[in-house]
């Protein structure tokens, strides 16, 4: 657990930008229970909040979970603590993207056949680049 000055800076920034306070969470795990893509995650959604509470930021940076989250807002719709985890996930994604000064997705990464690319709705590509690159 690292409650260093940089942790507090990070959390303050996260709270400000997302309007969400991870300490509001009491770990009922309802977010994980309803998450439609939880099977592909290495950290469960409620664990992401727990890691934020404990200051395990390095582990979060390495986690696949924020990049699996599809912003479907199911977690936020049912959270008994009225937390919007979708926003917290976005905050973590942005922090990682900004920290690393690199994108997680570039056009060269796309493993799509030309046929797929033709069928794939424009909104999917725009969304992906918006979520995975800055």
């Amino acid at each position, binding site marked *: 657990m690292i409650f260093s000055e940089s942790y507090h800076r990070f959390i303050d920034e996260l709270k400000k930008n997302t309007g969400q306070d991870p300490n509001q969470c009491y770990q*009922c*795990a309802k977010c994980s*229970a309803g998450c439609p893509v939880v099977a592909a995650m290495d950290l469960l959604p409620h664990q992401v909040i727990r890691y934020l509470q404990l200051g395990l930021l390095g582990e979060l940076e390495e986690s696949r979970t924020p990049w699996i989250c599809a912003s479907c807002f199911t977690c936020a719709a049912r959270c008994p603590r009225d937390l919007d985890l979708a926003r917290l996930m976005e905050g973590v994604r942005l922090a990682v993207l900004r920290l690393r000064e690199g994108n997680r997705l570039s056009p060269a990464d796309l493993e799509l056949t030309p046929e797929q690319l033709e069928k794939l709705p424009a909104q999917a590509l725009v969304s992906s680049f918006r979520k995975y690159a800055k």
Partner: protein
Amino acid sequence: MPRIGVFICWCGTNIAGTVEIEQVVNAARSFPGVVYAGDYRYLCSEVGQKLIKDTIKKENLERVVVGTCSPRMHEVTFRKAVAEAGLNPYLLEVANLREHCSWVHKDPAEATPKAIALVRAAVSKASLDEPLTALMLDVEKRALVIGGGIAGIQAALDIADSGYTVDLVEKEPSIGGRMAQLEKTFPTLDCAACILTPKMVEVAQHPNINLLTYSEVEAVSGFVGQFDVRIRSRARSIDPSKCTGCGICYEKCPAKVPSEFDMELGKRKVIYVPFPQAVPNIPVIDRENCLYFKRGRCRICEKECPAEAIDFEQQDEIIERRYGVILVATGFDSMDLTGYGEYGYGQHPDVLSALQFERLFNASGPTAGQVVRLSNGRPPQRVVFIQCVGSRDIARGQNYCSKICCMFTSKQAILLKEKLPETEAYIFYIDLRTAGKGYEEFQRRAAEEYGVIYLRGSVGKVFPEGERLLVRGVDSLSGRPLEIEADLVVLAAASVPRRDAPELARLMSINSDRYNFFDEAHPKLRPVETHTAGIFIAGACQAPKDIPEAVAQAGAAAAKAVTLLSKEKLQSEACVAKVDPARCSGCLHCEAVCPYGAIAATETEERVRGELLTRTVAEVNPALCQGCGCCTMTCRSGSVTLQGYTDEQMLAEVDALCLQR
């Protein structure tokens, strides 16, 4: 200028730690009228009180100011001390140097001048104090208990056993309340009916208890010792003096509606008793659904009744009666779960609230005691219980923990295992709260002896898939998402106040919290009293609680009620409002705002230019007035004064506070 004595209390370090006592005492000596100023470490101690009494005599004091804790704590103490020294007790003023000063400041440089100002204000007010006298009022030796659940029953029995007459008012056709709906009780697994029905019978037979079922309180006025209450006893459409309780009427009644007692799972007849052990065992006709009352035809019950007890013409009865005390025990409701669409409650017949599930175990319940799926009538092979549905939920439910769900869920899982040992039981919980005698052991038995599987986590959604319910959740301890194919899903719905609790609180002028639970007068020291003298609370109407707690609270409230009833006279409030008829214009706005009905119009005679004229003015009944002061603020001509808090006194305090240092 009267001779004023000032006494400053250190309250150990509570006041002296922040306020420079010596400076305050020195300053007080210079205030107009002050002939004595002193201090003591604990003024509330016997030694401290003696200091006040002795000084009053020695210095011939006419007014006393104490700088101490809040008047809510010790005003009574010091008034008594002053009275014992021969002064009128209302010639005492309290400057709150603790809650209003030392506790809210850290810096003595800030606290000390503020303490001086507060004492100066109190001295200014004291110099205008007048002796006041309280009235001695009669106490009506009769109690009203509202609500016939286990708390109301217990309270009524305790008061009645003390020799006072009790009217027990219950809205439903029978007493018994929520407890009557339960099959077994935790942690002993006593049969609920077996321990409740003897008490119900005792109520019915008790010579001091007057049972008014199917009745509601409509209006309350008056004050402690003399509450005037109007009760509507709804027409049962049955003559109780003739009815033998044989039950032929409801056997023959052709109309059925969902049973409230069975939480809408089963049906009841339109003429009915809610359950077999009902007290009184006299049916009622539900006029809203009765074919005769709706369409003018049927009257089968009347034809079949061998006692000729059916009376379609019966009218509601209005009972107006005076009570010395009122005890409120209106209980709780199970929260409406329609806002939790993800569980499919109300959408799928196999998703039940815990209270509904409880009814399945009962021999007289909707399934005659068979635990089956309502979708197909077959016993479930797997049951999933979900806790905290609506509790601890600031988004869609109640912020609080409902306290009883951890235990009743474990109980239901055990009952299930006893009835259907092969059936699997899963309980999703967030935290297990088992504080109570034998509770933790009970929960461990469920897990260890009965093999109930406890899953720490939540359920995201229940998906009806084919014949079964796919419960998707997570076990947060293992970090594993789970999918459980269940036959029944049972939701531990939050306990909430009765829907009509706000209305009742308004009728009785008692306070409620943000959830509409009735407020106690003090969370620790006055747990069964309300802020309205003479009105007491017990049971789940105050906050969610289990049976032993409700019963204990009922006993405590009954003891408080009996304490009042045992008094010959009660002292009324001395600081009451008074109208100056010479200035009163007779607009009677004060009458409209008075919450206690203490103001009425009266005629006054005055001589104008030699002519005797009669005029309408307001008059305060000092027995009814509680000194709230609403009338004084409403009065346009400033002709109503609250004695002990006159405008002159208030302004003198303000002037003193505003004086430059």
